């Protein structure tokens, strides 16, 4: 399995500001995924982050709002920009089983609880 550290665990932010969430993995992974879980809802994929290439965004999510960095095979960041109360959610990063191995198992970080006032 992969051990994933996600920071911060929670934050309360003012509207109009930005927050960067970090995801650190204890092993090299090819694919990293960022999900959003709105209050009382299921998880929705925001984007897929590959090392060395631009992130791939799902329908309804744009790079200007959710810029992603993937500088190496163990680390990624997601920024929530120009926040509004509608961005209040849990944000989770997820990784596959490991580089070069079919990622039949996906593991999750502990999530970031974001509240926007």
């Amino acid at each position, binding site marked *: 399995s992969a051990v994933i550290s996600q920071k911060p665990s929670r934050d309360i932010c003012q509207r109009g500001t930005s927050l960067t969430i970090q995801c650190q993995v204890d092993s090299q992974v090819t694919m990293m995924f960022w999900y959003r879980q709105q209050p009382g809802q299921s998880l929705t994929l925001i984007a897929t982050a590959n090392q060395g290439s631009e992130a791939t965004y799902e329908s309804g999510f744009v790079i200007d709002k959710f810029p992603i960095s993937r500088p190496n095979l163990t680390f990624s960041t997601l920024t929530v920009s120009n926040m509004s109360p509608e961005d209040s959610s849990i944000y989770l990063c997820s990784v596959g089983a490991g580089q070069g191995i079919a990622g*039949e198992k996906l593991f999750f970080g502990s999530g970031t609880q974001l509240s926007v006032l």
Partner: protein
Amino acid sequence: AQTVTQSQPEMSVQEAETVTLSCTYDTSENNYYLFWYKQPPSRQMILVIRQEAYKQQNATENRFSVNFQKAAKSFSLKISDSQLGDTAMYFCAFMKHVQGGSEKLVFGKGTKLTVNP
């Protein structure tokens, strides 16, 4: 596009009894994986069990087992000898097979399970 349906928003069970959570999915893929994740109030997503679509044998992990019916596109989770610690949201998820890599998960809306003493 794949869809995952969990028709039971909430369920409850007495401690030590058995409960079954339902999940159906829709896909045109032939090779894929199915998962059950548990999310307790700590919001950590915990992998409970997974099933490869090409395997006819149902997956089992201790007290957790699945009933995988590929033709019916059904993937239910049975929890035996329920424990108080099983209280959580349970999400059914689908991932299509990608050679040598990971793919995104498509989640159902979840079932809130309460185990009563």
